[in-house]
């Protein structure tokens, strides 16, 4: 357990939440620096939303606490609420208001002045490609349009710390890309904590990633660190013709984990000798068409740490 540090944007101190017997969040210690974009990556039910809900004072922790810009979520919840913006996992909008009115509702609650509110909402709506539909009641929006509005609702009052719970849930690749680009732009000005179960999202956006599983942070670091320091094995993928049993046996004498499917041979081990393997196959009379070292993914990291697939 760490001690309070006011320079951090988000600091959780042994944060925990139980629902009855179920431990949803199990003593999490996170330190997120100001201006950092931190991604919580984890499968369904890992405890990401529960963590976020506690950080934005929606849910009381059953153990530990957290500090947002130095304000304790238990002792100064209204201080915290003043400086955060939240985009919940479920899209929540006032259905019979138009998109501008929705933004203005949050803005006015935060005491943003009328003129500023107007320019900001225009700006945000334009960024999200919703400018043309600003006057339509939100219930007439498509799911993706609502999702985009859901995100900018968290930003209208220019908060210091932004929580985005699965921001790109249910968006098409194009819209996802647009949101990513917008988030990247925000990165310099704000502290952002987002959750996702898309590895590529965490990979692309985050300065640092915390992999969460069963309420615990099981790995923490930059994408690069996670992949290169944590992964114990390298994987090589070889496309070749006429892969004979004899050839495989030959490879297996050096690398036990070698599997063939059709024309593809996959070999993994702690350390792989690229030249050596290609040489071995050559000697066995196999014509190698292509061979490459597989880029490690966060999926692999997750699989190795938890023994489970991240998705699907």
């Amino acid at each position: 357990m760490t001690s309070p540090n006011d320079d951090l944007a988000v600091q959780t101190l042994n944060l925990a939440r139980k629902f009855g017997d179920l431990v949803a969040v199990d003593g999490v210690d996170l330190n997120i620096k100001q201006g950092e974009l931190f991604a919580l990556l984890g499968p369904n039910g890992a405890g990401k939303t529960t963590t976020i809900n506690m950080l934005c004072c929606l849910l009381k922790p059953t153990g530990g606490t957290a500090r947002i810009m130095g304000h304790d979520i238990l002792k100064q919840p209204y201080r915290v609420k003043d400086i955060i913006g939240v985009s919940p996992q479920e899209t929540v909008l006032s259905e019979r208001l138009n998109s501008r009115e929705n933004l203005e509702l949050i803005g006015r609650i935060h005491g943003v002045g009328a003129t500023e509110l107007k320019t900001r909402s225009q700006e945000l709506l334009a960024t999200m490609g919703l400018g043309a539909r600003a006057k339509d009641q939100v219930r007439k929006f498509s799911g993706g349009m609502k999702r985009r509005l859901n995100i900018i609702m968290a930003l209208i009052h220019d908060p210091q710390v932004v929580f985005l719970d699965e921001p790109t849930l249910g968006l098409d690749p194009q819209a996802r890309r647009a949101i990513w680009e917008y988030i990247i732009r925000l990165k310099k000005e704000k502290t952002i904590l987002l959750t996702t179960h898309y590895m590529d999202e965490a990979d692309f956006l985050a300065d640092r990633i915390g992999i969460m599983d069963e309420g615990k942070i099981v790995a923490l670091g930059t994408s690069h660190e996670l992949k290169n320091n944590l992964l114990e094995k390298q994987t090589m993928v070889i496309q070749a013709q006429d892969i004979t049993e004899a050839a495989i046996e030959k490879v297996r004498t050096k690398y036990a984990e070698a599997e063939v499917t059709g024309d593809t041979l996959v070999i993994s081990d702690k350390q792989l000798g690229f030249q050596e393997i290609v040489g071995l196959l050559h000697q066995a009379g196999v014509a190698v068409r292509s061979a490459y070292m597989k880029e490690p993914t966060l999926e692999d990291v997750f699989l190795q740490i938890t023994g489970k697939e991240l998705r699907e």
Partner: protein
Amino acid sequence: MRLLALASRNLKEIYRDPLALGFLLGFPLVFMLLFGAIFSGDTLPEFTVGVIDEDNTMMSQAFVDQALPMVPVLEIATYDDTGTALKDLKFGELKAYIVIPPGFGQQVSSNWQGTKADILLQMTYDESDVMISEQLITIINDVTLAFARVEMPVTVDAKPIHVENQIDYIDFIGPGIIIFGLLILIPTSARTIVRDKEKGMLSRLLTTPTHPLDFILGYSLSNVAITIAQIIIFIFGAWAMGMDIIGNLGLAFLVFFLTGLCSIGIGMVIASLSRSENQAEPLAWLFAMPLAMLSGCWFSIEMMPSYIRTVAYAFPYAHAIDASRGILIRGVGLEAVGADFLFLAGWAVAIFAIGVVLFRRSMRS
């Protein structure tokens, strides 16, 4: 600012929902039209009512000859003895007969002079037609009250007969239907709150610096605006359909307004106790409909068993109906409806207090 932002948002959510709004305003108006149409126009029903005057004073004669005939739906037949009247009642010639017992004149006179005295009339009616006999009781009651100037300021009027108002059905039903309209605010109030709770809007707003009191006042304020619109439209509707407005309209408005506040409060309590619209909606109706029946929105409460009346008078609506009828039809003032008024105000304060406590509790996680 926060409060206004929330209230205006809530109001928009309601008034941009044509179905909900139409229901809130249209439903009671339809009732009013229906009742108005059934008991109005050329097909005005004539009820023949027998009268046996055993008092035989100037007062009782004035009552029989001048007060009763002013009610358009009544056809008065005088009898000398109850035997003949009873026979005619049994043969269906009469809907009811009234016996004016000795002492009636005395009782009315003391009322005129400001001493409260119970007025006794005996009425025998045809039980087989509940609706009509009930109406008759109410009508006779109202005429007698007006005649005896019960609950009216004492005026030393030399002319013995001066019935303020001809009471017809719309006069009777008007205030009841207006109260019914205010009763169906219960489901509306509950729905607006619990919908936000269920859809996550409340949670979303709880991540903003909105205080519990902002929420409560925000919901109440928007519903208050709806209530005011309702009252104005209903009073106007009833008036357009022929309801007489004798008394102080401002006072009547206040009675209706307090009633509306009680409904909003009850709605808030129901919303706090429910998790979803599917729970809140039936619960609210389960409350509103029986209350409308019991409180006498459609039928006179006088006929109901006393234990039911006790229940009815534990809630604001029967009081509101009594008070608004007194004000609108009989033209009485605050001195006559003061007790009802206090009851309504007290109830409104109490239910809001309970609502606030429960709502705050239901927001905790």
